[in-house]
């Protein structure tokens, strides 16, 4: 019996009878982070980090029992030692370490190796078997440092402001929206948010995350103070009636997919290459740092990354998942006014 198995419900630990980020309702679920394709509705019991809990609670409501632990704190279930370690993906995101009789497996969840200044930075965890994501598992994906991308975003905003335009930047409501907000040059103008970004901001601010003021872009404040300001909105908002309230605006999209010209500029004016997932170099560094003998590759360019690892002398295989990694549209689809 392997320590972790790949089942139709998700990654399963038979010894402890727990699932990791299950995609069907189960009895007990360990959750790496609060994105909707990982923290799914319907299970009876959830365990996550303290920092991830408020968002998960906000999304799942008061029905299920949600417990939390600190990074590095161990829980033992039927002899299996379980702990959560920083994944650097979003606030509270974790890799999950599972140990039984001296054998260690780590499930990466979603991760990135660059310190984004708001998530607890990624820490490699030694293990025998590493289950890694590979959303951007091709060498064409190599990110610039965050500060350079933020400079591009600020320059773009400044230019639009000078022309009297509103800048609307599209970013995932949980994670990238806060990351951008945190490093905007607020000397340029006022910042507003779409409702779904604002509600996530409130949850994260209540747990101590410091963000510049960014009120919801309501019909009222829009009329008075919008010219030259910047609005952070989820990608779907671009295709909703919401966007029509702005008169003269320029749109930007923040996503790892913007690295390629064929995905860049599909219906927006500017693309910014900004991702909460590891790039090619990040994936390779992370795998090497675990010292794992075996690597399983989930979501993204799985077959390519697995073959590459095999050629580097690391045993690797791909496994299918129902995780989505980073997409140009959020799965959540929470677009509210």
């Amino acid at each position, binding site marked *: 019996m392997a320590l972790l198995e790949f089942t139709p419900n998700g990654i399963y630990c038979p010894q402890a009878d727990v699932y990791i980020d299950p995609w069907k309702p189960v009895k007990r679920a360990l959750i790496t982070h609060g994105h909707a394709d990982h923290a799914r509705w319907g299970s009876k019991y959830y365990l996550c980090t303290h920092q991830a809990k408020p968002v998960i609670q906000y999304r799942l409501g008061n029905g299920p029992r949600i417990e939390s632990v600190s990074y590095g704190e161990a829980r033992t279930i039927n002899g299996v030692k379980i702990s959560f370690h920083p994944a650097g993906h979003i606030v509270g995101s974790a890799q999950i370490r599972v140990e039984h009789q001296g054998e260690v497996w780590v499930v990466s969840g979603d991760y990135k190796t660059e310190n984004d200044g708001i998530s607890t930075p990624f820490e490699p965890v030694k293990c025998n078997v590493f289950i890694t994501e590979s959303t951007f598992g*091709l*060498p*064409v*994906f*190599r990110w*610039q440092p965050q500060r350079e991308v933020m400079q591009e975003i600020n320059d773009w905003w400044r230019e639009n402001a000078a022309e009297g335009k509103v800048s609307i930047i599209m970013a995932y409501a949980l994670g990238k929206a806060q990351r951008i907000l945190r490093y905007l040059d607020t000397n340029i103008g006022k910042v507003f948010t779409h409702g779904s970004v604002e509600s996530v901001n409130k949850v994260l601010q209540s747990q101590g995350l410091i963000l510049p003021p960014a009120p919801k872009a309501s019909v009222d404040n829009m009329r008075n103070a919008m010219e030259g300001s910047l609005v952070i909105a989820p990608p779907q908002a671009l295709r909703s009636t919401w966007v029509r309230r702005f008169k003269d605006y320029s749109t930007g999209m923040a996503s790892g997919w913007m*690295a*390629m*010209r*064929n995905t860049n*500029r*599909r*219906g927006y*004016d500017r693309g910014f290459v900004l991702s909460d997932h590891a790039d090619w*170099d990040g994936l390779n560094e992370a795998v090497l740092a675990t010292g794992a003998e075996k690597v399983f590759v989930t979501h993204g*360019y799985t077959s*390519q990354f697995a*073959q*590459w690892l095999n*050629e580097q002398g690391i045993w690797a295989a791909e496994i299918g998942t129902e995780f989505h990694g980073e997409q140009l549209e959020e799965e959540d689809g929470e677009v509210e006014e």
Partner: protein
Amino acid sequence: MKDFSQLFSRLETSESLEKVAALEKYFAGADERNKLWTIALLSNQRPRRVVTTATLQRWAREYAQLPVWLFEESHRVVGDIAETIALILPSPSEIRDFPLSYWIEIVLNLGEKEEAKQKEAIFNAWSEMSKEDRFLLNKLLTGGLRLGVSQKVLVNALARHTGLDDNLIAHRLMREWSPVEHTFQDLLLDGEGDASRSRPYPFFLASPLEIEPHLLGEIADWQVERLWDGIRAQLIVRQGELFVWSNSEELLTHKFPEFNTLLGTLPDGTVLDGEILAFRDSLPLPLQDLQTRIGRKNVTRKSMQEIPVIFIAFDLLESQGKDIRSRPLVERRELLEKIAPAGSVLHLSERVEAGSWAEVRENRDKAREYASKGLVIRRRSAPYRSGRKRGDWWEYKVAPLTIDAVLLYVQRGEGQEAGSFVEFTFAVWGDEGLVPIAKTEVDLTEPEKNELTAWAKNNTLERFGPVRSLKPEHVFEIAFESIAPSTRHKSGITLRNPRIVRWRREKKAEEADTLERLKAFLVFN
């Protein structure tokens, strides 16, 4: 090259007006060498290809230490070789920003070096360039740098930048020049001649006649001529120089050296309106031939012999240096007849003699015998107006030809249209089965589209990239303006402006038309 790469991305995305603004802004900040090279690139004067994409790809794999298969996987996802290379190279430790002209010098010098030296120089360049700049350099190296800018946009931007007149800029850009031998000053600022000399008048465009012609009133009030399928143009002779302008405001003088003979025969201060036609053995050639000739970079003796051209004049706008557009057509015609024809390349548009509207209609129906599109009917008392104004000039086009053809291939769209088919290929029966004869847009109703899409998915025989070949089953009526022989097509013919009229559900594939019947239309051409 950061400023140039910013310009490049703005030109890729924006509308004409924004393109002009982006160029103007770029020209304001660029030095003379960079301006000149940018104008050269925008006018399709690219440095020659230095290395093949295959070689560049091999070097990139070596530099990035990646296996062939992984490069190919990456290329499949990215879609462009120059871009794939730019992306897979490790990030530079330090980015140095050299101007466009610096990189072009490097590319020009590389041509003479041996391969090992070329590789070394390219590795050095890659090691200090941003991804965007690498992409542009790779495009320059492989001779594939193209910017989506029309001559008109470039001219507008340069006019704004220099404060000179549009027509003057267009005229000066038409000269033989090279970014290596000339300066910005030589090219645009020191040129001789003033703009008003070459300036055309705004074109008056005919409107399609959608009513029966007899509703236009007395036939005696109208002048009827043939409607040619060529390039509408004004031919200008002023102060001993000749200019040819198309109605899309492109200066085409240099494309038609044969018109220069008219300098001796046409009086100075003459502006003719007419149609340029490819013309041989007293018959017009298909428009496609004319476009092929214009599309070639250089006009050679050979192309002039293969595709001779004429100018069919149908109006006179300026006579003895005077603008006569406000005078009635009948007077302008009288003056026109005095000066045309003049020489073998200038024909007079002949009047179609018709005593009744019924005769006019008969004549229109015979349009194909003259390889014309139909008739143009113009009011004899009308001035020469500008733009498309209804009332005085009418196009009375011949009814399209139609055939029944079998749907053979469908092509999937890209980007937003990735889920649907955007192009159909139709075929008719030849001696050895179906022969493709036309590609059309998918002009069907939504329910028809959905039905056909679902059917096509289940009846695909083979797939070639975005194209599927289908079981020959569905028959469509296809309309087209005219047919011409073609050596480039398997069928031996090409149809002009083919489009779907309707889906003929009642017909079986076997009942579609034959290539033989289609070729029978050729006798008119």
